[in-house]
Protein backbone atom coordinates (compact mmCIF):
# COMPACT_ATOMS: atom_id res chain seq x y z
CA UNK A 1 0.00 0.00 0.00
CA UNK A 2 1.29 3.43 -0.94
CA UNK A 3 1.40 6.16 1.67
CA UNK A 4 -0.09 9.56 0.63
CA UNK A 5 0.83 12.76 2.45
CA UNK A 6 0.23 16.34 1.45
CA UNK A 7 2.68 18.66 3.25
CA UNK A 8 2.27 22.41 2.82
CA UNK A 9 4.66 24.24 0.45
CA UNK A 10 6.39 27.43 1.57
CA UNK A 11 5.26 30.63 -0.16
CA UNK A 12 7.27 32.96 -2.38
CA UNK A 13 9.61 30.51 -4.11
CA UNK A 14 8.27 31.17 -7.58
CA UNK A 15 7.39 34.78 -6.92
CA UNK A 16 10.32 36.93 -5.95
CA UNK A 17 8.65 40.31 -6.53
CA UNK A 18 8.82 41.76 -3.05
CA UNK A 19 9.33 45.45 -3.72
CA UNK A 20 7.79 46.28 -7.08
CA UNK A 21 7.86 50.06 -6.53
CA UNK A 22 11.51 50.07 -5.63
CA UNK A 23 12.33 48.00 -8.68
CA UNK A 24 10.31 50.40 -10.80
CA UNK A 25 12.18 53.43 -9.46
CA UNK A 26 15.56 51.78 -9.95
CA UNK A 27 14.75 50.63 -13.46
CA UNK A 28 13.33 53.98 -14.52
CA UNK A 29 16.29 55.88 -13.09
CA UNK A 30 18.74 53.43 -14.64
CA UNK A 31 17.20 53.46 -18.07
CA UNK A 32 16.81 57.25 -18.09
CA UNK A 33 20.40 57.61 -16.90
CA UNK A 34 21.68 55.33 -19.63
CA UNK A 35 19.57 57.19 -22.17
CA UNK A 36 20.90 60.56 -21.02
CA UNK A 37 24.49 59.28 -21.09
CA UNK A 38 23.95 57.82 -24.54
CA UNK A 39 22.43 61.02 -25.90
CA UNK A 40 25.23 63.13 -24.42
CA UNK A 41 27.77 60.84 -26.04
CA UNK A 42 25.93 61.09 -29.35
CA UNK A 43 25.85 64.88 -29.04
CA UNK A 44 29.58 65.00 -28.40
CA UNK A 45 30.20 62.67 -31.31
CA UNK A 46 28.13 64.87 -33.60
CA UNK A 47 30.06 67.92 -32.35
CA UNK A 48 33.32 66.17 -33.16
CA UNK A 49 32.31 64.76 -36.53
CA UNK A 50 30.48 67.79 -37.99
CA UNK A 51 33.52 70.03 -38.71
CA UNK A 52 35.20 67.07 -40.39
CA UNK A 53 32.42 66.60 -42.93
CA UNK A 54 33.28 68.47 -46.15
CA UNK A 55 31.14 71.58 -46.62
CA UNK A 56 30.32 70.42 -50.16
CA UNK A 57 28.58 67.43 -48.68
CA UNK A 58 26.52 69.66 -46.43
CA UNK A 59 25.54 71.78 -49.42
CA UNK A 60 24.52 68.60 -51.23
CA UNK A 61 22.37 67.53 -48.29
CA UNK A 62 20.62 70.89 -48.28
CA UNK A 63 20.14 71.08 -52.06
CA UNK A 64 16.76 69.31 -52.19
CA UNK A 65 15.32 71.72 -49.65
CA UNK A 66 16.58 74.98 -51.08
CA UNK A 67 13.55 75.35 -53.33
CA UNK A 68 11.24 74.77 -50.38
CA UNK A 69 13.19 77.26 -48.32
CA UNK A 70 12.95 79.80 -51.12
CA UNK A 71 9.21 79.24 -51.35
CA UNK A 72 8.74 79.58 -47.63
CA UNK A 73 10.59 82.91 -47.71
CA UNK A 74 7.86 84.37 -49.94
CA UNK A 75 8.12 86.60 -53.03
CA UNK A 76 11.68 87.51 -54.07
CA UNK A 77 12.73 91.08 -53.24
CA UNK A 78 15.86 91.53 -55.38
CA UNK A 79 16.95 94.89 -54.00
CA UNK A 80 16.74 93.89 -50.34
CA UNK A 81 18.28 90.50 -50.99
CA UNK A 82 21.23 91.97 -52.89
CA UNK A 83 21.81 94.41 -50.03
CA UNK A 84 21.71 91.64 -47.41
CA UNK A 85 23.91 89.38 -49.53
CA UNK A 86 26.44 92.22 -49.86
CA UNK A 87 26.48 92.64 -46.09
CA UNK A 88 27.05 88.90 -45.66
CA UNK A 89 29.80 88.90 -48.29
CA UNK A 90 31.67 91.59 -46.36
CA UNK A 91 31.19 89.86 -42.99
CA UNK A 92 32.01 86.29 -44.02
CA UNK A 93 35.66 86.79 -45.07
CA UNK A 94 36.21 89.01 -42.03
CA UNK A 95 35.09 86.11 -39.86
CA UNK A 96 37.46 83.69 -41.51
CA UNK A 97 35.05 81.99 -43.93
CA UNK A 98 36.96 80.77 -46.98
CA UNK A 99 35.63 80.92 -50.53
CA UNK A 100 34.86 77.21 -50.20
CA UNK A 101 32.03 78.06 -47.76
CA UNK A 102 29.70 80.42 -49.62
CA UNK A 103 26.81 81.97 -47.68
CA UNK A 104 23.49 82.57 -49.42
CA UNK A 105 21.01 85.03 -47.87
CA UNK A 106 17.24 85.00 -48.41
CA UNK A 107 14.88 87.74 -47.39
CA UNK A 108 11.42 86.88 -46.12
CA UNK A 109 8.73 89.58 -45.99
CA UNK A 110 7.05 87.89 -43.02
CA UNK A 111 6.72 89.82 -39.78
CA UNK A 112 8.40 87.20 -37.60
CA UNK A 113 11.20 88.76 -35.54
CA UNK A 114 13.84 86.25 -36.48
CA UNK A 115 16.87 85.34 -38.55
CA UNK A 116 18.13 81.82 -39.03
CA UNK A 117 20.95 79.79 -40.47
CA UNK A 118 20.47 76.31 -41.81
CA UNK A 119 22.25 73.52 -43.62
CA UNK A 120 24.44 74.39 -46.61
CA UNK A 121 25.15 78.00 -45.64
CA UNK A 122 21.60 79.24 -46.27
CA UNK A 123 20.46 82.22 -44.18
CA UNK A 124 16.94 83.61 -43.87
CA UNK A 125 16.41 87.14 -42.54
CA UNK A 126 12.82 88.23 -41.79
CA UNK A 127 11.32 91.65 -42.32
CA UNK A 128 10.12 91.73 -38.72
CA UNK A 129 13.72 91.65 -37.55
CA UNK A 130 15.12 94.21 -40.01
CA UNK A 131 12.35 96.66 -39.08
CA UNK A 132 13.50 96.57 -35.48
CA UNK A 133 17.16 97.28 -36.27
CA UNK A 134 18.27 100.92 -35.80
CA UNK A 135 21.47 100.68 -37.79
CA UNK A 136 23.34 98.59 -40.30
CA UNK A 137 25.71 97.56 -37.51
CA UNK A 138 22.90 96.03 -35.49
CA UNK A 139 21.76 94.10 -38.55
CA UNK A 140 25.34 93.07 -39.28
CA UNK A 141 25.66 91.73 -35.73
CA UNK A 142 22.62 89.46 -36.24
CA UNK A 143 23.90 88.27 -39.59
CA UNK A 144 27.40 87.77 -38.19
CA UNK A 145 25.84 85.63 -35.48
CA UNK A 146 24.03 83.50 -38.07
CA UNK A 147 27.09 83.27 -40.35
CA UNK A 148 29.05 82.07 -37.32
CA UNK A 149 26.59 79.17 -37.00
CA UNK A 150 27.43 78.19 -40.58
CA UNK A 151 31.15 78.63 -39.92
CA UNK A 152 30.95 76.45 -36.79
CA UNK A 153 28.86 73.89 -38.70
CA UNK A 154 26.16 74.11 -36.04
CA UNK A 155 23.31 73.06 -38.39
CA UNK A 156 25.22 69.87 -39.24
CA UNK A 157 25.82 69.20 -35.55
CA UNK A 158 22.11 69.63 -34.78
CA UNK A 159 21.02 67.50 -37.69
CA UNK A 160 23.62 64.84 -36.90
CA UNK A 161 22.53 64.80 -33.28
CA UNK A 162 18.90 64.55 -34.34
CA UNK A 163 19.64 61.73 -36.74
CA UNK A 164 21.71 59.86 -34.15
CA UNK A 165 18.92 60.25 -31.59
CA UNK A 166 16.39 58.99 -34.10
CA UNK A 167 18.52 55.95 -34.83
CA UNK A 168 18.99 55.30 -31.11
CA UNK A 169 15.25 55.69 -30.45
CA UNK A 170 14.46 53.32 -33.31
CA UNK A 171 16.90 50.76 -31.97
CA UNK A 172 15.41 51.03 -28.48
CA UNK A 173 11.73 51.13 -29.27
CA UNK A 174 11.68 49.16 -32.50
CA UNK A 175 9.41 51.74 -34.11
CA UNK A 176 9.76 51.69 -37.87
CA UNK A 177 12.69 53.96 -38.57
CA UNK A 178 11.07 55.48 -41.65
CA UNK A 179 8.68 57.73 -39.80
CA UNK A 180 11.28 59.15 -37.47
CA UNK A 181 13.95 59.59 -40.13
CA UNK A 182 11.43 61.39 -42.31
CA UNK A 183 10.72 63.78 -39.50
CA UNK A 184 14.38 64.44 -38.86
CA UNK A 185 15.62 65.11 -42.37
CA UNK A 186 12.65 65.13 -44.71
CA UNK A 187 10.93 68.38 -43.89
CA UNK A 188 12.25 71.72 -45.00
CA UNK A 189 10.27 73.10 -42.09
CA UNK A 190 12.63 71.36 -39.75
CA UNK A 191 15.61 72.84 -41.50
CA UNK A 192 14.38 76.23 -40.37
CA UNK A 193 13.78 75.13 -36.80
CA UNK A 194 17.11 73.57 -35.93
CA UNK A 195 17.96 74.41 -32.36
CA UNK A 196 21.43 75.07 -31.05
CA UNK A 197 22.87 74.68 -27.61
CA UNK A 198 23.73 77.57 -25.28
CA UNK A 199 27.43 77.08 -25.90
CA UNK A 200 26.92 77.16 -29.64
CA UNK A 201 24.95 80.40 -29.32
CA UNK A 202 27.60 81.98 -27.14
CA UNK A 203 30.34 81.07 -29.57
CA UNK A 204 28.24 82.43 -32.44
CA UNK A 205 27.81 85.73 -30.54
CA UNK A 206 31.54 85.97 -30.07
CA UNK A 207 32.39 85.19 -33.71
CA UNK A 208 29.69 87.60 -34.92
CA UNK A 209 31.13 90.34 -32.75
CA UNK A 210 34.59 89.72 -34.20
CA UNK A 211 33.17 89.99 -37.72
CA UNK A 212 31.37 93.21 -36.85
CA UNK A 213 34.53 94.76 -35.42
CA UNK A 214 36.62 93.64 -38.40
CA UNK A 215 34.23 95.19 -40.95
CA UNK A 216 33.39 98.48 -39.16
CA UNK A 217 36.42 98.92 -36.91
CA UNK A 218 34.23 99.19 -33.79
CA UNK A 219 31.48 97.26 -32.03
CA UNK A 220 28.67 99.81 -32.12
CA UNK A 221 25.25 98.20 -32.50
CA UNK A 222 26.44 94.87 -31.11
CA UNK A 223 24.07 95.09 -28.16
CA UNK A 224 21.06 96.54 -30.03
CA UNK A 225 19.82 93.13 -30.93
CA UNK A 226 19.30 91.89 -27.38
CA UNK A 227 18.56 95.34 -25.93
CA UNK A 228 15.82 96.14 -28.43
CA UNK A 229 14.33 92.68 -28.55
CA UNK A 230 14.61 92.10 -24.81
CA UNK A 231 12.91 95.41 -24.01
CA UNK A 232 10.22 94.95 -26.56
CA UNK A 233 9.45 91.38 -25.53
CA UNK A 234 9.08 92.52 -21.94
CA UNK A 235 6.63 95.29 -22.83
CA UNK A 236 4.55 93.43 -25.39
CA UNK A 237 4.02 89.83 -24.54
CA UNK A 238 1.99 89.20 -27.70
CA UNK A 239 4.92 89.84 -29.99
CA UNK A 240 6.27 87.03 -32.13
CA UNK A 241 9.80 86.86 -30.81
CA UNK A 242 11.11 83.69 -32.37
CA UNK A 243 14.64 84.96 -32.11
CA UNK A 244 14.36 85.36 -28.35
CA UNK A 245 12.63 81.98 -28.04
CA UNK A 246 15.64 80.27 -29.55
CA UNK A 247 18.15 82.66 -27.98
CA UNK A 248 17.22 82.80 -24.30
CA UNK A 249 18.74 84.84 -21.49
CA UNK A 250 19.54 88.13 -23.28
CA UNK A 251 20.88 89.78 -20.12
CA UNK A 252 23.74 87.33 -19.71
CA UNK A 253 24.64 87.58 -23.36
CA UNK A 254 24.73 91.36 -23.30
CA UNK A 255 27.24 91.11 -20.44
CA UNK A 256 29.35 88.57 -22.33
CA UNK A 257 29.40 90.71 -25.48
CA UNK A 258 30.25 93.87 -23.48
CA UNK A 259 33.11 92.09 -21.75
CA UNK A 260 34.58 90.79 -24.98
CA UNK A 261 34.31 94.17 -26.71
CA UNK A 262 36.00 95.89 -23.78
CA UNK A 263 38.79 93.31 -23.67
CA UNK A 264 39.54 93.85 -27.38
CA UNK A 265 39.20 97.62 -27.26
CA UNK A 266 36.22 97.71 -29.65
CA UNK A 267 34.19 100.85 -28.96
CA UNK A 268 30.54 100.14 -28.26
CA UNK A 269 29.49 103.78 -28.45
CA UNK A 270 30.98 104.76 -31.82
CA UNK A 271 28.68 106.30 -34.44
CA UNK A 272 26.88 103.48 -36.24
CA UNK A 273 26.38 103.28 -40.01
CA UNK A 274 22.73 104.01 -40.79
CA UNK A 275 20.58 101.63 -42.81
CA UNK A 276 20.07 102.67 -46.46
CA UNK A 277 17.38 105.35 -46.99
CA UNK A 278 15.40 103.24 -49.40
CA UNK A 279 15.16 100.24 -47.08
CA UNK A 280 12.06 101.15 -44.97
CA UNK A 281 10.08 101.85 -48.12
CA UNK A 282 11.21 98.59 -49.72
CA UNK A 283 10.31 96.68 -46.57
CA UNK A 284 6.83 98.21 -46.50
CA UNK A 285 6.36 97.40 -50.20
CA UNK A 286 7.40 93.80 -49.67
CA UNK A 287 4.93 93.54 -46.83
CA UNK A 288 2.15 94.81 -49.04
CA UNK A 289 3.10 92.25 -51.68
CA UNK A 290 2.98 89.46 -49.15
CA UNK A 291 -0.65 90.41 -48.46
CA UNK A 292 -2.50 90.38 -45.22
CA UNK A 293 -0.82 87.39 -43.72
CA UNK A 294 -2.11 86.31 -40.34
CA UNK A 295 1.42 86.01 -39.04
CA UNK A 296 1.84 89.70 -39.78
CA UNK A 297 -0.86 90.97 -37.50
CA UNK A 298 0.74 89.76 -34.29
CA UNK A 299 4.10 91.28 -35.04
CA UNK A 300 3.00 94.68 -36.26
CA UNK A 301 0.27 95.36 -33.72
CA UNK A 302 2.34 97.43 -31.27
CA UNK A 303 3.63 99.81 -33.92
Amino acid sequence: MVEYRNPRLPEGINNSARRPLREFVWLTAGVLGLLAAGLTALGLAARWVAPRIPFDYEVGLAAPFVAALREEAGPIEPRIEVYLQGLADRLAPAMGMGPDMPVRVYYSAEGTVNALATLGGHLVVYRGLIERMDSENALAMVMGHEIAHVLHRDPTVSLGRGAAMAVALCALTGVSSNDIAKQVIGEAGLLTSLSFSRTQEKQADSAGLRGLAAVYGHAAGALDLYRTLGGEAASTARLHMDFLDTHPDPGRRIQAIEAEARANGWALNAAPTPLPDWLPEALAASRARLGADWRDSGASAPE
Partner: protein
Amino acid sequence: MNGILVILVLLALGYAFGSGAERRHYKSILEREEALRRVMVFSARVPPDLHRWRESRLVSGSVCVSADYFKAFVAGLRGLVGGRVTSYEGLLDRARREAVLRMKEEAQRLGPCKIFNVKIETASISKGGENALGTVEVLAYGTAVAD
Protein backbone atom coordinates in the same frame (compact mmCIF):
# COMPACT_ATOMS: atom_id res chain seq x y z
CA MET B 1 4.16 66.35 -21.70
CA ASN B 2 0.55 65.16 -21.95
CA GLY B 3 1.77 61.76 -22.97
CA ILE B 4 3.92 61.47 -19.87
CA LEU B 5 0.97 62.51 -17.70
CA VAL B 6 -1.24 59.84 -19.24
CA ILE B 7 1.47 57.24 -18.68
CA LEU B 8 1.85 58.29 -15.04
CA VAL B 9 -1.90 58.08 -14.46
CA LEU B 10 -2.03 54.63 -16.09
CA LEU B 11 0.94 53.53 -13.99
CA ALA B 12 -0.72 54.71 -10.78
CA LEU B 13 -4.02 53.04 -11.71
CA GLY B 14 -2.23 49.84 -12.72
CA TYR B 15 -0.23 49.76 -9.51
CA ALA B 16 -3.17 50.54 -7.23
CA PHE B 17 -5.58 48.06 -8.79
CA GLY B 18 -2.97 45.49 -9.72
CA SER B 19 -1.35 45.18 -6.31
CA GLY B 20 -4.74 45.21 -4.56
CA ALA B 21 -6.00 42.46 -6.82
CA GLU B 22 -2.79 40.47 -6.34
CA ARG B 23 -3.09 40.60 -2.56
CA ARG B 24 -6.74 39.55 -2.62
CA HIS B 25 -6.04 36.81 -5.13
CA TYR B 26 -3.22 35.31 -3.07
CA LYS B 27 -5.47 35.38 -0.01
CA SER B 28 -8.22 33.52 -1.85
CA ILE B 29 -5.71 31.07 -3.37
CA LEU B 30 -4.30 30.23 0.06
CA GLU B 31 -7.77 29.74 1.53
CA ARG B 32 -8.96 27.50 -1.28
CA GLU B 33 -5.73 25.54 -1.38
CA GLU B 34 -6.24 24.83 2.29
CA ALA B 35 -9.87 23.80 1.68
CA LEU B 36 -8.91 21.51 -1.21
CA ARG B 37 -5.94 19.89 0.45
CA ARG B 38 -7.71 16.56 0.40
CA VAL B 39 -7.63 16.53 -3.42
CA MET B 40 -4.07 15.58 -4.27
CA VAL B 41 -2.53 16.07 -7.66
CA PHE B 42 0.31 14.08 -9.24
CA SER B 43 2.20 14.32 -12.45
CA ALA B 44 2.80 10.56 -12.52
CA ARG B 45 1.58 9.14 -15.80
CA VAL B 46 0.10 6.03 -14.27
CA PRO B 47 -1.35 5.90 -10.78
CA PRO B 48 0.35 3.45 -8.46
CA ASP B 49 -1.83 0.55 -7.24
CA LEU B 50 -3.89 0.86 -10.39
CA HIS B 51 -6.28 -1.93 -9.42
CA ARG B 52 -7.50 0.07 -6.43
CA TRP B 53 -9.43 2.67 -8.47
CA ARG B 54 -12.82 2.12 -10.08
CA GLU B 55 -13.77 5.56 -11.47
CA SER B 56 -11.73 7.81 -13.75
CA ARG B 57 -12.56 11.04 -15.43
CA LEU B 58 -10.84 13.88 -17.28
CA VAL B 59 -10.90 17.13 -15.29
CA SER B 60 -9.54 20.55 -16.20
CA GLY B 61 -9.32 24.11 -14.99
CA SER B 62 -8.29 27.19 -16.88
CA VAL B 63 -7.76 30.87 -16.32
CA CYS B 64 -6.97 33.78 -18.58
CA VAL B 65 -5.04 36.62 -16.98
CA SER B 66 -3.45 39.84 -18.12
CA ALA B 67 -0.72 41.95 -16.63
CA ASP B 68 -1.63 45.42 -15.40
CA TYR B 69 -0.08 48.50 -16.94
CA PHE B 70 2.44 48.90 -14.13
CA LYS B 71 3.69 45.33 -14.48
CA ALA B 72 3.87 45.58 -18.26
CA PHE B 73 5.77 48.86 -17.99
CA VAL B 74 8.30 47.50 -15.50
CA ALA B 75 8.71 44.39 -17.65
CA GLY B 76 9.28 46.63 -20.68
CA LEU B 77 12.03 48.50 -18.83
CA ARG B 78 13.45 45.17 -17.69
CA GLY B 79 13.50 44.12 -21.34
CA LEU B 80 15.99 46.88 -22.04
CA VAL B 81 18.50 45.89 -19.39
CA GLY B 82 17.84 42.17 -19.02
CA GLY B 83 17.51 40.18 -15.84
CA ARG B 84 14.73 38.60 -13.82
CA VAL B 85 11.30 39.93 -14.76
CA THR B 86 9.93 39.75 -11.24
CA SER B 87 6.79 41.70 -12.09
CA TYR B 88 5.50 38.80 -14.18
CA GLU B 89 6.58 36.01 -11.84
CA GLY B 90 3.74 36.68 -9.41
CA LEU B 91 1.24 36.89 -12.24
CA LEU B 92 2.18 33.51 -13.72
CA ASP B 93 2.45 31.93 -10.27
CA ARG B 94 -1.08 33.04 -9.45
CA ALA B 95 -2.43 31.95 -12.82
CA ARG B 96 -0.99 28.42 -12.49
CA ARG B 97 -2.25 27.94 -8.97
CA GLU B 98 -5.66 29.29 -9.93
CA ALA B 99 -5.90 26.85 -12.87
CA VAL B 100 -4.89 23.92 -10.65
CA LEU B 101 -7.44 25.02 -8.04
CA ARG B 102 -10.23 25.12 -10.61
CA MET B 103 -9.27 21.65 -11.78
CA LYS B 104 -9.37 20.44 -8.17
CA GLU B 105 -12.79 22.05 -7.68
CA GLU B 106 -14.12 20.17 -10.68
CA ALA B 107 -12.61 16.92 -9.44
CA GLN B 108 -14.01 17.35 -5.95
CA ARG B 109 -17.54 17.12 -7.30
CA LEU B 110 -16.80 13.45 -7.94
CA GLY B 111 -16.24 12.89 -4.27
CA PRO B 112 -12.92 12.02 -2.65
CA CYS B 113 -10.36 11.50 -5.38
CA LYS B 114 -6.81 12.01 -6.61
CA ILE B 115 -5.71 13.53 -9.91
CA PHE B 116 -2.98 11.84 -11.93
CA ASN B 117 -0.98 12.74 -15.03
CA VAL B 118 -1.54 16.46 -14.44
CA LYS B 119 -0.35 18.65 -17.28
CA ILE B 120 -0.08 22.41 -17.02
CA GLU B 121 0.00 24.40 -20.18
CA THR B 122 0.63 28.13 -20.61
CA ALA B 123 -0.28 29.86 -23.84
CA SER B 124 0.04 33.47 -24.83
CA ILE B 125 -3.13 34.50 -26.61
CA SER B 126 -2.05 37.97 -27.68
CA LYS B 127 0.23 37.01 -30.53
CA GLY B 128 1.48 39.90 -32.60
CA GLY B 129 0.46 42.36 -29.93
CA GLU B 130 2.71 45.16 -28.79
CA ASN B 131 3.57 43.70 -25.41
CA ALA B 132 5.13 40.29 -25.48
CA LEU B 133 3.19 38.91 -22.54
CA GLY B 134 -0.13 40.71 -22.68
CA THR B 135 -2.64 38.00 -21.99
CA VAL B 136 -1.87 34.40 -21.06
CA GLU B 137 -4.08 31.42 -20.61
CA VAL B 138 -3.10 28.69 -18.20
CA LEU B 139 -4.78 25.30 -18.51
CA ALA B 140 -4.36 22.49 -16.02
CA TYR B 141 -5.79 19.06 -16.73
CA GLY B 142 -5.47 15.52 -15.54
CA THR B 143 -7.43 12.37 -14.78
CA ALA B 144 -9.31 12.19 -11.52
CA VAL B 145 -9.55 8.70 -10.12
CA ALA B 146 -11.81 7.57 -7.28
CA ASP B 147 -12.61 4.37 -5.51
